């Protein structure tokens, strides 16, 4: 289990970036709490999975990427999408199934994508993004773009065969891809410790002759960011893929409906005490990077933006029936 440690940042990060990461964490938190609120009121039509509690693990990793780099994501993709700077209005509209949504209301929470910004999409199939990730990495390699790909998935996803096949192919072809296992200790109700026979997922790197990295406190944004800066550099330099794992926790149930019997209230509460946003906030204040007021203002603006997105979504039209018959084939 991750021990709460004091945050550390090896990199010199400009203040603007430090605060922007804080903003993104607030956006994720506020966005998902808002969606959760609406789900409970039946205002969201479909299945959603929340990133609340996992903000640092998402933002810290993605902040280390450069423009033009790509990610693939999974069912729990809100955090990654927001970290990739997706339009919040369109994303909220998508989750509400509106015509103005990222996917015109046809994809929903599990299929948020923004190809222009490098997000090759959330994915409803556990492991479904892994093949895409190595393929996108092959394109970068063959076209010598200097760009890299980050493939995000959970802890439980490492037991899919596609994990093995894609890790192997990437390692043999030295593809520029970071395999990132965001370990929140459970795949739905199933503890990861009950479905692997090693201690941690990152240890599986040994089977592919590539480095495995561990971020023990995935709620510590500077720690996550530092590690990813190192890994991005390693991968971009043509050394082939890496596997990295961070420990974090999801505060909410697996999905919109989840009785949650598989974990104790005590466990959840303990993790809430390790709130990644509070942790980062303290870090910024302690290191004189920002005042509490500044940070609260960022949070307030974030809330406003989320409320704005809801308004946008609410006022947006439903997709037309005809639109259901469009977009199947490319010309």
């Amino acid at each position, binding site marked *: 289990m991750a021990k709460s440690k004091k945050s550390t940042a090896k990199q010199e990060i400009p203040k603007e970036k430090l605060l922007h990461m804080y903003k993104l964490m607030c956006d994720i938190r506020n966005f998902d709490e808002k969606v959760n609120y609406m789900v409970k009121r039946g205002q969201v039509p479909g299945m959603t999975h929340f990133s609340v509690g996992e903000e640092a693990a998402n933002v810290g990793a993605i902040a280390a990427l450069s423009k033009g780099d790509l990610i693939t994501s999974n069912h729990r993709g809100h955090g990654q999408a927001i970290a990739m700077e997706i339009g919040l209005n369109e994303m909220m509209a998508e989750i509400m199934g509106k015509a103005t949504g990222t996917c015109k209301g046809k994809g929903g929470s599990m299929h948020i994508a923004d190809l222009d910004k490098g997000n090759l999409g959330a994915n409803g*199939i556990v492991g479904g993004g892994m093949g895409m990730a190595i393929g996108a990495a092959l394109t970068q390699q063959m076209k010598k773009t200097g760009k890299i790909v980050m493939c995000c998935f959970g802890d439980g996803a490492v037991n899919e065969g596609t994990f093995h096949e894609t890790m192997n192919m990437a390692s043999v072809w030295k593809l520029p891809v970071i395999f990132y296992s965001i370990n929140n200790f459970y795949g739905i109700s199933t503890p990861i410790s009950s479905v692997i026979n090693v201690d941690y997922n990152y240890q599986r790197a040994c089977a592919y002759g590539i480095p495995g990295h561990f971020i023990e406190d995935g709620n510590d944004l500077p720690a996550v960011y530092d590690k990813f800066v190192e890994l991005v550099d390693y991968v971009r330099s043509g050394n082939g893929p890496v596997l990295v794992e961070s420990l974090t926790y999801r505060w909410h149930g697996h999905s919109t409906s989840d009785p949650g019997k598989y974990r104790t209230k005590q466990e959840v509460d303990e993790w809430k005490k390790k709130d990644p946003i509070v942790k980062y906030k303290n870090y910024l204040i302690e290191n004189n990077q920002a005042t509490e007021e500044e940070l609260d203002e960022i949070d307030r603006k974030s809330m406003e933006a989320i409320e704005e997105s809801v308004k946008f979504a609410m006022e947006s039209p439903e997709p037309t029936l005809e639109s259901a018959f469009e977009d199947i084939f490319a010309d």
Partner: protein
Amino acid sequence: MENETKVMSVRDAIILAMSEEMRRDENVFLMGEDVGIFGGDFGTSVGMLQEFGKERVRDTPISENAISGCAIGAAMTGLRPIVDVTFMDFIVYMMDNIVNQAAKTRYMFGGKGQVPVVFRCAAGSGVGAAAQHSQSLEAWFTHIPGLKVVAPGTPADVKGILKSAIRDNNTVIFLEYKAQFNMKGEVPLDPEFTIPLGKAELKREGKDVTVVTYGRMLERVLQAADQVREAEGVSVEVVDLRTLMPLDKEAILNSVKKTGRVLLVNDAHKTGGFIGEIAATIAESDAFDYLDGRILRLAAEDVPVPYNAKLEAAMLPSVERIKKYILKLVNKR
């Protein structure tokens, strides 16, 4: 108990059927992702861990290939696994084990061995889960010799067919519908109540039009049939297949010969769906000679299932549309 029934949901009928069979035969067990303390993604094994323990209500890694392969190997050596596939869409990762192994093993071995596994698949749309969580893929399996495929449409049929599937010595693909786990109906409580595979049932007798359907669409077809009978005096015969493979051709053809008009309804994509096979079966048989009109089909539209609830719903045959097609067949509209 013998003639007792109880009103229960499809979900509870599934739990009851599996539990009865597990009590009856110690070789029967359930495996799948989150079937244990979670009680199944759709609650279809709630309480079973408590009764049967974790050896027989077996949570697995997220490894559909290993799950299906393990089930098959266990079945070949004397056990009788039930696999909770959860969303049928995830069966993509089980295709080798089901199609190349389970379906063919006995044949390739010259009649030796058997593979009694039931794959329980939550099919269809209706929960706002979009294109990767909403497919009804039965047509993939009806095409493969060596597999049985069933899709009951009422709680009682679910119980009786599931029990027969578990007792069958072959691999059975069992469709249950995520939109209908809460659908209720009278269910016989007799633990020896089973429904034979391969037998369709006339859910309504009629003389003007035959509607052949199965699974999720049965409910709507029955509503449509009752409404057109009431409102328009059209007498609809509803042939509920329940089992797709082996197909009860006789029941279909007899009904078509009687009415001369036929509508086929299911919830899978229209093109290449199993009702196409039924249409072809009729069109190549002697029932063709009795037809008074075209063989009509109503199925899900040929588009990936959209997320938006209204669009999602509109992709399926509605009761209204079924009625319209029935009336079209009898030239009432």
